[in-house]
């Protein structure tokens, strides 16, 4: 018999009003949420906004968790949806001229990456990733950086595994071409 998922106990405790349990859930997954949002949005300020939105959604909806998937999949699905939604809203805001883009703002001190060399490398990577369409970028991030299987990605995005593979290969192909052009 499989061991009970320790996250499920945390959820039950959090839903019974145990704030420490909710805090434990956040502490466990906050970095995964942040890095997904960061790689998708391309800058710290937007990523932080997405993280806060995701935490609110988790906080307000944890009682609706049905214990049919892992907490990680559930949180990742929320993160993915909120991030894509954030990107869509940002595009509309830019179109209406009511939002300044935070992307590629290398001069911004609002960042949590302290090491200058690593920051520069990461900025180059962010710049490349931002040139991919959002959904290809998302699949590339899940597959290449989060080591997710196509089955897991399919559970989160609702796409077929075949479609996901095609998208991933397109993304890798584009990235390789861009890297060659930049050499």
């Amino acid at each position, binding site marked *: 018999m499989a061991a009970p998922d320790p996250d499920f106990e945390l959820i039950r405790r959090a839903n019974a009003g145990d704030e420490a349990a909710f*805090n434990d859930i*956040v*502490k466990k997954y*906050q*970095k995964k949420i*942040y*890095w997904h949002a960061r*790689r998708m949005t391309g800058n710290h300020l937007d990523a*932080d906004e997405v*993280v*806060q939105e995701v*935490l*609110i959604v988790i*906080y307000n909806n944890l009682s609706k968790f049905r214990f049919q998937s892992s907490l990680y999949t559930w949180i990742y699905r929320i993160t993915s*949806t909120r991030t894509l*939604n954030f*990107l*869509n*809203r940002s*595009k*509309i*805001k830019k*179109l*209406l001229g*009511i*939002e300044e883009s935070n992307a590629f703002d290398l001069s911004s001190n609002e960042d*949590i*990456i*302290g*090491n200058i060399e*690593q*920051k520069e*490398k*990461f900025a*180059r*990577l962010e710049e*490349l990733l931002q040139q991919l*369409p*959002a*959904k*290809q970028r998302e699949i590339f991030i899940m*597959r*290449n*950086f989060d080591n997710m299987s*196509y089955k897991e990605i399919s559970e989160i995005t609702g796409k077929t595994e075949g479609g996901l*593979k095609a998208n*991933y*290969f397109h993304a*890798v*192909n584009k*990235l*390789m071409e861009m*890297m060659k052009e930049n050499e």
Partner: protein
Amino acid sequence: MNKYRDKIFAYIDGSMTDDERTQFEKIISSDTGLQIEIEEIRKSLLVMKTDSTPDVDETYFINLLPEFYQRQTGKKKFKLKKLAYYLSPAAAAVILMLIFYPGKTTNLDVSKDLSQEITESDLNEVLNPYETNYSLNDLMSFATSTTDSIVNNLVSDELDLSSKSVDKMLTDNYTNTNELLNSLDESQANELYSQLINKDIIKGAR
């Protein structure tokens, strides 16, 4: 473009079946160019992976929860402020009532059916402490002029086109649109986004 491009990606990705992999490895073993290309792609993906998780200032993650709870509290306060803002006309109405009907609570028969029309004698009864005989018309005219001055002030604020006011209007417009967009739920935001894409208003469909 390499004719094996898709196979290379599938091979590196590990998503080939055993048969496909065995067959492709035979091709690779006899093609030095292919071997180099596969190695380059592998290396590039690895570099990207390494670069994708730099060392970070952990303070951000330590402060994340306190920040979250602080924002939650802030939101509640904001909601109360908003409520107070929307209730302010009602509060003004109550104040006006108190001005028009001082001592009302002590003199009026509170058990009287509220739906019943208040007569002129009721009003005089209320206003007796001032020993003045107001007619209903007097009171209505006073109420109208007071209300008019409030409305006039609001309208003049709206119509004030001084540069300061224009700035305020732009800021309000920005805030309102921003708030409106932020308040859209996922399906509404997606619907709006899809329509903008379909009408070619936003380029670069994802």
